[in-house]
């Protein structure tokens, strides 16, 4: 480790400003996956990488790779990456911070005349914001890992209805290669994947710690289309004992599941349980007892036992409430995702780097999903560094202090220069 190795934060600051200016939509920033906003961001990164003299390439899904060559070109590389798309009217830092951290790290190495032991590749990933654009998890990074299923090419962008395949071809990608499962990255050529990302939550800010080292990305169990069926009847004319009230059944379920969550938390378990949507059916009215309530439920935890405990309680409550209130629950199909623990060796190395740099840090689970999950699922040792941020994410008020970014990027730089040496 060269003593003066420090990331080029000025470069990152300049690029944050340029990205914001060029993707500002009047409210927040919009960088549509496989649309003009994301393309602009990729072009900016490519220009800067070119100026830094990095090796530039793209893959079948038009992810962008910007490589600082290492001393041993045959050694497995370190990948520093994240995504460049944003939600509509989103914040400037979600995703872009990870790519700019990578560029700042290698720019710092270039500036110091440092040649790493192995290749360090900054990766700008496509189309991560599944909730906003293509409703499938991590299509960009999974394509680079040869793990995007052919049928997923048919998913449609939620705003314009165009398929992932059509938009990917338009951007210069190769859907046939994706169908054949061609992969650019995998455990055979990547020593570690490291993603810096804003926390998106309030924990680091509340605890006054600038940097988080992530233990894993939780898995979830979800009911996207659950409902309670009761019977519509007149609010004034029907006494309680005759009621089959769907609204109060749904409220009771939410209230009691929330209490159960609280009890688990007090017992030291870490999970989140959210009724994301709840709405009475179209026949509802002010003076009607509700006959139908639709809701969605999302339970996430790193430890599968915790979400299983919530779902066991859910099923117990559903049976009890149905019997007592004369309603019927139709929970609909359940979808799930497995948790993606980060690699123990990567976590240990990140802790070592933070300690060497005397940067205060907190070891914590991620709340949301990130491309790092796709790498972990593919067997690549993966890690994540969180940057303290304010006002959450996916909104125009999302904020991040540049000194916190600098602290986290210093950890990234130290890690990239030293991992596996």
């Amino acid at each position: 480790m060269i003593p003066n190795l420090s990331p080029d934060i000025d470069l990152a600051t300049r690029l944050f400003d340029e990205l914001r200016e060029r993707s500002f939509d009047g409210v927040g920033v919009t960088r549509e996956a496989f649309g003009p906003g994301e393309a602009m961001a990729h072009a900016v990164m490519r220009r800067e990488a070119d100026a830094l003299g990095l090796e530039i390439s793209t893959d079948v899904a038009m992810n962008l790779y910007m490589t600082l060559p290492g001393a041993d070109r045959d050694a497995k590389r370190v990948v520093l990456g994240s995504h460049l798309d944003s939600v509509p009217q989103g914040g400037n830092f979600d995703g872009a911070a990870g790519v700019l951290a990578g560029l700042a790290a290698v720019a710092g190495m270039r500036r110091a005349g440092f040649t790493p032991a192995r290749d360090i590749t900054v990766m700008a990933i496509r189309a991560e914001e599944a909730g906003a654009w293509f409703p499938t998890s991590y299509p960009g990074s999974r394509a680079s890992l040869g793990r995007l299923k052919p049928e997923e090419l048919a998913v449609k962008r939620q705003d314009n209805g165009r398929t992932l395949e059509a938009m990917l071809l338009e951007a210069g990608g190769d859907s046939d290669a994706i169908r054949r499962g061609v992969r650019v990255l995998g455990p055979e050529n990547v020593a570690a994947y490291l993603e810096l990302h804003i926390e998106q939550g309030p924990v680091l800010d509340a605890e006054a710690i600038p940097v988080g080292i992530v233990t894993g990305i939780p898995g979830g169990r979800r009911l996207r289309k659950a409902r309670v069926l009761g019977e519509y009847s007149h609010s004034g004319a029907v006494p309680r004992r005759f009621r089959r009230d769907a609204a109060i059944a749904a409220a009771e379920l939410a209230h009691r599941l929330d209490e159960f969550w609280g009890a688990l938390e007090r017992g030291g378990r870490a999970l989140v349980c959210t009724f994301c949507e709840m709405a009475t059916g179209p026949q509802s009215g002010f003076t009607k007892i509700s006959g139908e309530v639709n809701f969605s439920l999302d339970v996430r935890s790193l430890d599968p036992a915790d979400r299983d405990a919530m779902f066991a309680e859910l099923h117990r409550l559903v049976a009890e409430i149905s019997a007592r209130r004369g309603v019927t629950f139709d929970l609909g199909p359940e979808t799930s995702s497995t948790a993606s623990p980060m690699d123990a060796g990567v976590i240990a190395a990140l802790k070592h780097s933070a300690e060497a740099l005397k940067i205060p840090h907190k070891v914590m689970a991620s709340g949301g999903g990130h491309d790092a999950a796709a790498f972990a699922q593919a067997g690549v040792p993966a890690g994540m560094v969180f940057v303290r941020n304010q006002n959450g994410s996916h909104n125009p008020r999302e904020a991040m202090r540049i000194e916190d970014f600098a602290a986290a990027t210093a950890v990234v730089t130290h890690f990239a220069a030293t991992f596996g040496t």
Partner: protein
Amino acid sequence: MMLFDLDLAERFLARLAAETADSPGVTRDAFGAGEQRAHAIAAELAGSAGLAVMRDFAGNLYATVPGDDAPALVSGSHLDSVRHGGNFDGAAGFAAALAVAAGLARAGTKLPRPFVAMATRAEETVWFPISFCGARAALGRLPAAALDTTRSDTGRTLASHMEDCGADPEAVRAGRLQLDPRSLRAFIEIHIEQGPVLVEADRPIALVPAIAGGPRFRNARIAGSYAHVGSAPLPSRHDAVAAFADVTHGLNELFREFSDAGRHAMATIGVVSTDPEMAAWSKVAGQCRFTLDLRGTDLDALTALRRRLMDLVEEAEATWGVKIDLGEDTGPQPGFLDAAIHARLRAAAAQLGIAAHTMPSGSGHDALAFHHAGVPTGFIFVRSHNGGHNPDEAMDLSDLEPACRLLSHMATTL
């Protein structure tokens, strides 16, 4: 001697069902084609029964049997319905009054006072967001601002709809009085129950001493913050749905206690909705709106429910860091109807051998408008099957018969 014409009531209801059919059920839109048709049928049948028929400036219909020069007994109900509603809600009450008027007229009975069968307008608030439009207009108590409210489906004003129906909104605006409360001895409304109580109690009719009121919040809103579910641990989430669940579940617990104790105070969440544009799986819900309808006739229990609601709102705001705005309380006060009329009805039922139940009404009716205007008011429920406001609503004519008998007795003895 049969002083009511039940066959006429049956013919009236059959023609309504046929001529305002809108499968499933009937639609008689207030100050629209459906209600107009119903009023035309009412006028035609009342006229052919030899009754004097007139309409007032608000489009209400009156069929009068003359009597001695004394304040009149008026009985009636509304002829509009909800969309795809049942045939009996409202119409049954006018059918009974018409049957009694026709029976009295045919028999040539000398009455101590005039008996008036009245068909009101626009009682169902699904059309115009105003309670008891027609009845209140007749009593000179409809605020002029009501004329500018718009019908939920057409978007056109009440004034414009009234003009279509040959009524005179300017007279309403001027506060003209058709029915001077001092000129009325009493108003008695017959209405189907809309609930299951009489079916369970196995009684054809009920005498109703009170009509429920209570706090009503049509536009309650909870404002939290949207956040990614994974990035918002329990202490820091401002979850509007969780706050909603805490408030309504807590309120329901008190409702359960009152209900178990046989006290008349109910709480209903008619509508709850997260924002369909903004709420999505993987997000904590930042907003939620709901309606809350508290009603009953037990004032202490209603007050307790309201107080508990305010406490729960405060607790949920503190727990979840949300802001809860219940909005305007649009609820009417409960109406405790005239005790003397209720006692007369009870005595008459006993004398006539009618097994009448006693129960409060959970929902509002035109009778409340008369009560609030100071007219001594009575109310009678008729057993109905399958509730009200739906196409399956049903009433047996044999259950309307004791109600007619009671009303006819009142007309000749009050």
